[in-house]
């Protein structure tokens, strides 16, 4: 199987559709990262009620 691209620059250019393709993949990665980060924050931010 062959790579679809001749060079890394080709890959980044996405045949002229770079903003659309990377805009989709980038924002998806960002959204998932934010979700994971808020889940993490929810664990540390929340303090149990204690009887002390």
């Amino acid at each position, binding site marked *: 199987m062959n790579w679809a691209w001749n060079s890394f620059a080709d890959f980044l250019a996405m045949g002229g559709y770079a903003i659309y393709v990377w805009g989709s*993949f980038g924002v998806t990665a960002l959204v998932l990262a934010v979700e994971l980060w808020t889940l993490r924050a929810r664990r540390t931010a929340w303090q149990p009620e204690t009887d002390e």
Partner: protein
Amino acid sequence: MSGHRINWFYFAAPQRFYPLAGMAVPWFAALGVILAAIGLVMGLGLAPTDFQQGDSYRIIFIHVPVSWMSMVLYVAMAFWAGVGLVFNTRLASMLAQAIAPTGALMAFLSLWTGALWGRPTWGTWWVWDARLTSELILLFLYIGYLSLRGAIEDERRADRASALLALVGVVNVPIIYFSVKWWNTLHQGASVSVTKGSSMATIMLNAMLIMALAFWMYAFAVVLTRVRRIILERESGAAWTRAYLSDRSPS
């Protein structure tokens, strides 16, 4: 019927489900990362350029999986909300509550990637077409569900009220799915169909299915993690939660 019978209600107790979910999360997370890596190499590296759409078609490797997830998660949310409503089980309602934020994000990503794909292929970011509009309604249903929950102080009342909303809204899911058949839409028909098979090249199809599996694994990992947070928050008064939290050293 003889032999062992699995008692499905055993894990319906939050304190039993909590450790089970905790054990499952790393497996789903690891599988998700591996599948996403394979899917991305296939989709962005190996799959050839499409002869009609050029490389803009590569958005499909995100767009179709997130769109499927937005619908699947809605059905799962409505299902567990309904189970919680009918059987009054806490864990079912907590699962519905845990699914909603991820479902909302998937619906948003479906619209976002759809707009970025629509622009180069249709010449427009948005059109009031049946498929796009019903997906937008799905996002509003998720937002409505979350807002309604947030507005009601008492968690058990929030469970019941939001379950009704989730169940009424489930009618929208088949509308989204069949919209491309029922109406004359700008959006194309199903790329993968149970009855007709696929209209895509093999490597493109495989990459898309692997990405879809990766999103499934991601959703499982995130929803189970979130339901664990919810269990601790909502069961904070219970004896087992206190014992668990006092054993655990603060990190």
